[in-house]
C-alpha cells in the first residue's frame, strides 16, 4: 500500500494534523511558510485523486478497516476529486499571500493560531467533500464552520463589525447544522444506516413521510450554507468585514461545497439528480435562483464597499448555479459545475486583487478607490479582467458558463430562465461600470504616485486572471469533465 493509495484519507488528515503543530509555533514567519507548504502538498494529493478518478472509477476507502456501512467510508468519484482540487488549490493560492495580507489585522503573536484555523477550515471543507458517511459530513461541517467563524472575527483588527458579522454567521450556521442533524436523525431512524450509498438503497423501502421531512430539514440546513435568498443575510457582512485573504478563500470554496453536498445528497441518497425528498429542484431552484440573480446584482450596484459589491455578485452567481441545477438532469448538473468552477476562478481572482488593494490603501470602500487606475495599473487590469468575467464578455470564463446556461435553458424551452440570466448580465454591466468609474473617473484628493500591489499578490492575481481568460478561450476541457461527471451521476447512478 504505497502512500498514494492512502491519498483519500491523507488529503484531509494532512491539514487536520499539521494545524495543531503550526498553532504551537512561536514565529509567525515559519508558521506562514509551513501553512503554504501544507496547502501546496494537499493540492498535490488532491490532484492525485483527480488523476485516479478521471477514468470514472470510484475510490472507496474504509476507515479503521471496517467495511461500510459498519464503519465510515470515504467515497471519491470524479466530482469529489474536482471539488477537493478546488478547495486545496484555493487554499494554496490564498496561503501564499495570507501572512502579508492579514499582517495589519492580526498581531504576530496570534498569527500562528490563525494559520492553524485556516488549515482546519481547509481540512473541514475537504473532509465534507470526500466523505461517504452522512454523520461524518456533519462533523467536518462543524470543523470548517467553527474555523470560519474565527477567521471572519479576525477582521476585527481593521473593522469591529467583523465581530457581529461572525456572531450572526455563528448563530445561523449553528441552527443550520442542527437542522442537518435533525435531517440525519429522520433518515437514520427509518433506514438504520448512515452510509450515503447504503441509505440510497434502503430509503425507497422506508416510510415516505419521515424521508420527506428528513430531506426538507437537510435541504433547509444546506440552503443556509449556500446562502439561498431568504437565508443569505450572513454572507454580505461576513465577506465584507472578514480579512480580504479570508474572503478570497471563502468566496472560492465555502458556499460551493454546500452546493456540492446538495448535488451529492440528491444523487446518492435520494436516487435522482432532480430532487431531495419531495423538494424537486426543477420547481424550487429556478425561482429562488432567479430572485438571487436579479436581487443580488441590484444590491451589488448600490454597495458602498467593493468587497460588499463582490459579495452580492457572489450571491447572484450562486443564483445562477441554482438556476442551472434547476434545469434538471445531466445537462443541469454539468451547467452548474461549469458555473461553479468558473465563478470560483473569476471571483477568486477579483478578491485576491482586492486583498492587494486593501493591503496597499487600507480600505476597500468605493470612494477610496479614486485614482486606482493610475496608481495601481496592475491591480486595475486584473480587476477589469474579473469584471469582464462577471458580465460574461466573450473570451472570458463568465461567457462560457452563462452561454451554457442560456443554451441549455433554450434547449429545454425554459425561456424565462434564459431571459433572467441575460437581464442579470445587463445589471452586472452596471455594477462593473461602477468599479471602473470609482477607479478611473473619480478625482483622487491628491494625485498619488505609482505604488502598485505588493509583489506577493502578483502570482495569485496573475494565475487566476489568466485562468479566467484561459477558461474563456478554451472552455472544452472543463466542459468535458463536467459532462463526464454529470453522466456518471445520472447514468449509472452509482
Amino acid at each position: 500500500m504505497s502512500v498514494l493509495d492512502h491519498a483519500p484519507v491523507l488529503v484531509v488528515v494532512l491539514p487536520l494534523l499539521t494545524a495543531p503543530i503550526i498553532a504551537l509555533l512561536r514565529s509567525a514567519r515559519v508558521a506562514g511558510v509551513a501553512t503554504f507548504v501544507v496547502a501546496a502538498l494537499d493540492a498535490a494529493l488532491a490532484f492525485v485523486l483527480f488523476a485516479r478518478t478521471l477514468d470514472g472509477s470510484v475510490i472507496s476507502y474504509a476507515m479503521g478497516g471496517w467495511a461500510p456501512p459498519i464503519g465510515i467510508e470515504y467515497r471519491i468519484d470524479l466530482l469529489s476529486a474536482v471539488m477537493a482540487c478546488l478547495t486545496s488549490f484555493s487554499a494554496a493560492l490564498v496561503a501564499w499571500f495570507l501572512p502579508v495580507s492579514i499582517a495589519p489585522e492580526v498581531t504576530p503573536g496570534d498569527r500562528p493560531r490563525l494559520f492553524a484555523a485556516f488549515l482546519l477550515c481547509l481540512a473541514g471543507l475537504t473532509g465534507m467533500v470526500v466523505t461517504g458517511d452522512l454523520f461524518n459530513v456533519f462533523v467536518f461541517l462543524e470543523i470548517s464552520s467553527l474555523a470560519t467563524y474565527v477567521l471572519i472575527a479576525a477582521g476585527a483588527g481593521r473593522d469591529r463589525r467583523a465581530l457581529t458579522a461572525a456572531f450572526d454567521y455563528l448563530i445561523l450556521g449553528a441552527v443550520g447544522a442542527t437542522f442537518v442533524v435533525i435531517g440525519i436523525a429522520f433518515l437514520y431512524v427509518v433506514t438504520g444506516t448512515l452510509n450515503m450509498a447504503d441509505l440510497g438503497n434502503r430509503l425507497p423501502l422506508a416510510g415516505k413521510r419521515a424521508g420527506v421531512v428528513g430531506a426538507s430539514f437537510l435541504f433547509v440546513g444546506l440552503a443556509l450554507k449556500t446562502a439561498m435568498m431568504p437565508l443569505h443575510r450572513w454572507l454580505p457582512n461576513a465577506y465584507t468585514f472578514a480579512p480580504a485573504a479570508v474572503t478570497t478563500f471563502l468566496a472560492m470554496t465555502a458556499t460551493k461545497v454546500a452546493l456540492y453536498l446538495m448535488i451529492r445528497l440528491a444523487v446518492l441518497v435520494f436516487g435522482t439528480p432532480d430532487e431531495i425528498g419531495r423538494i424537486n429542484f426543477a420547481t424550487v431552484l429556478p425561482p429562488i435562483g432567479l430572485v438571487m440573480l436579479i436581487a443580488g446584482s441590484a444590491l451589488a450596484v448600490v454597495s458602498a464597499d467593493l468587497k460588499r459589491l463582490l459579495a452580492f455578485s457572489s450571491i447572484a452567481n450562486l443564483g445562477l448555479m441554482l438556476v442551472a441545477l434547476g434545469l434538471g438532469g445531466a445537462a443541469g448538473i454539468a451547467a452548474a459545475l461549469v458555473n461553479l468552477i468558473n465563478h470560483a476562478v473569476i471571483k477568486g481572482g477579483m478578491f485576491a486583487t482586492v486583498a492587494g488593494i486593501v493591503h496597499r490603501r487600507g480600505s476597500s470602500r468605493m470612494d477610496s478607490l479614486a485614482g486606482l487606475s493610475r496608481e495601481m495599473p496592475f491591480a486595475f487590469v486584473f480587476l477589469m479582467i474579473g469584471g469582464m468575467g462577471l458580465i460574461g464578455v466573450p473570451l472570458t470564463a463568465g461567457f462560457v458558463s452563462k452561454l451554457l446556461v442560456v443554451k441549455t435553458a433554450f434547449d429545454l424551452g425554459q425561456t424565462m430562465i434564459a431571459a433572467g440570466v441575460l437581464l442579470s448580465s445587463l445589471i452586472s454591466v452596471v455594477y462593473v461600470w461602477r468599479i471602473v468609474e470609482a477607479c478611473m473617473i473619480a478625482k483622487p484628493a491628491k494625485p498619488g504616485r505609482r505604488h502598485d500591489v505588493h509583489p506577493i499578490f502578483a502570482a495569485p492575481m496573475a494565475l487566476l486572471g489568466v485562468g479566467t481568460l484561459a477558461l474563456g478561450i478554451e472552455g472544452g476541457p472543463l466542459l468535458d469533465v463536467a459532462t463526464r461527471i454529470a453522466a456518471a451521476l445520472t447514468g449509472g447512478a452509482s
Partner: protein
Amino acid sequence: MKDLVGLFPYWAVALLMMTGLYIVIAQGNLVKKLIGLGIFQVSVFVLYIAMGVVSGGTPPILETGFVTYSNPLPSVLILTAIVVGVATLAVGLALAVRIRESFGTVEEDELLPLTEPEAPADAEPHA
C-alpha cells in the same frame, strides 16, 4: 389512536426543539440566543436517544444474562454532538464578550445602528 400514544415522546421533544428555536430567533440578547441554541441542540439529542431506545433493553454494556440491548449508535453520535455544542457555545460566548467590549452592548437592537453596513470602518481598540 392507540399506537399514536407511542409517538408521544417525539412530539414532546419536538415542542422542546421549537421552544429553543423560538428563543434563538425572537430574543435580542446575544447571550440568550446562545442559551436558546443550547436548549435547541440538547433537545435534538433527546430525539436521537429516544429513537435508539428498545423497551425492555438494557444499556449497551455486554453482560452475561442480558440479551436485549438498546441501540448504541445514537449514543455514539450524541457524544460527538454534545462536545460540538459546547465548542460552538464557547466560541459564541467569546465573540459576545468581544462585542460587549467593542460596542459596549450585547443587545441586538442597540447593535444594529452601530453596525450600519454602509458606514466607514472604524477599528476598535486592540484587545
